């Protein structure tokens, strides 16, 4: 693995409406939940997780630099390009020829790209670098059964 988390991109299909029945009343962990005879209206994850469909893209994580944030290889990132980066945001950045996933730390005269893994060093971004914030990660999707 390189020194960065690489991501690959594909655009999102948000026209496809997938509704899952959502049982209201919460789920009582540890207890069999009381039988619900009625179902609420469907829940659409596209609608819940993708606030700006026109500017939302997906990326897949490669590499371990964000491990301690719980972000591991093959996780899928939901990336909104329209959002302005805020301090502490998880961002897909493009720096010196490649995409990297890091948290943004704004300082007075520069920006640091912060990893979440002691084996990786923060990247100091100055005007010398070819750098753009490509998009802000709003959600991370993980498969828990791989």
């Amino acid at each position, binding site marked *: 693995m390189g020194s960065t988390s690489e991501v690959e991109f*594909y655009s999102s299909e948000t026209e*496809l409406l997938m509704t899952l029945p959502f049982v209201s009343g919460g789920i009582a962990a540890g207890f069999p939940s009381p039988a619900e005879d009625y179902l609420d209206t469907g829940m659409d994850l596209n609608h819940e997780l993708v606030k700006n*469909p*026109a*500017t939302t893209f997906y990326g897949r994580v*490669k590499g371990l630099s964000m491990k301690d944030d719980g972000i591991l290889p093959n996780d899928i990132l939901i990336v909104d390009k329209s959002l302005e980066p805020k301090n502490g945001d998880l961002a897909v950045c493009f720096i010196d020829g490649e995409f990297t996933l890091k948290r943004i730390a704004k300082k007075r005269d520069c920006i640091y790209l912060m990893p979440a893994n002691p084996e990786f060093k923060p990247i100091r971004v100055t005007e010398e670098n070819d750098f*753009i914030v*490509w998009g802000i990660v709003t959600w991370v999707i993980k498969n828990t059964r791989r």
Partner: protein
Amino acid sequence: MIGLVDCNNFYASCERAFNPALRNRPVVVLSNNDGCVIARSNEAKELGIAMGALPFEIEKLIEQNNVAVFSSNYTLYGDMSHRVMTILQTYSQDVEIYSIDEAFLSFDGYNLYDLEAYSREIVGKVTKGTGIPVSMGIASSKTLAKVANKTAKKRKELKGVYVIDSDEKRIEALRNFAIGDVWGIGRQYAELLVRQGVKTALEFTQMNKEWIQKHMTVVGRRTYDELCGHPRIDFELMPPAKQVICNARSFGSMLTEYTQVEEAVANYAARCCEKLRKQNCCASVVMVFVHTNQHRKDLPQYGKNIVINLPVATNSSMELVKYATKGLRAIFKEGFHYKKAGVIVSDIVPAASIQSNMFYELDAIKQGKIMKVLDELNGAMGRNKVIVGRQGFERKWKLRQEKLSPCYSTRLSDIITVKA
């Protein structure tokens, strides 16, 4: 006022949006079948790569200048276009999508807005949100909005926005604008005008109106009025449903076998039906054509088409494939090297208003159900997973797309193939 938003070098910009390393590299996109150059980044234009250039003609330029070359990826371009248009629709109630990368926005009733600031916001939001840089021109007519847009693109200091809101700005924009670049002035009229000594759009607006009416008909007169700032071309918000759907392509290599050509024709027919079903329409006429490569003077030439009136209008792939291949069998001749085939359906009517045929029994309801299942399966699993038998799996006729960019597409099936 009317705004025109235009994506800068759209296809090349789509490729760059997902690959920022291409930002400072020249980029060209090739037509279907990797035939010729159909889109260029500014850097590629500066290298002197012309529209329509053939790949082998520019081989050296490509190598020497590290030009990135792509096959056209219409899945990607279509999706990115849709995103741009969706954002534009949040800024104006009336958006006329003029082409894949251009839209007119109506600003009727925006009198209290600072349209220049508003335009800068639109340009900023689209460019940031999609990664596709856009330019915007604003004026009182569509033709002038086009002029304003080109001016915004040409003059770097304008930063992508030009508003023609005074006569001074109008005259300034028209003064340096070549008459041949004016929307609505074709090549013949441009030549006619240059012969009259009229080289710029401004000179055109200073001509005698009667002369224009006489030599360039009402069309020229309309352009004249529009350039003077009087709108004469209305908004077309609802594009009329397509009256003809065509699916025709050159083959990746020349084909000689009937079964290979039949496979292609079956696929084109099936694709026409997919489009018909999307519009909720049926067609009652189908035309099939084939021809050889006219540029290969060393080979015997042949070309023919056949028109078939269907007994009942249909959008069923099974029905249309049946008739299209029947037609092909009638016109196909052995002993030729075929380069292109196509299927064109016409006489398109809404699916709800089909005339039945008492002499022709077709279980339309059953076919409709089958097609619905077919569309759903292909939607979920990827195009052409379930097909009509004749479409075949050999695909010798298939497009050459050797430099297709990763399809950052909208399909789950494509997501799986992305390497992690």
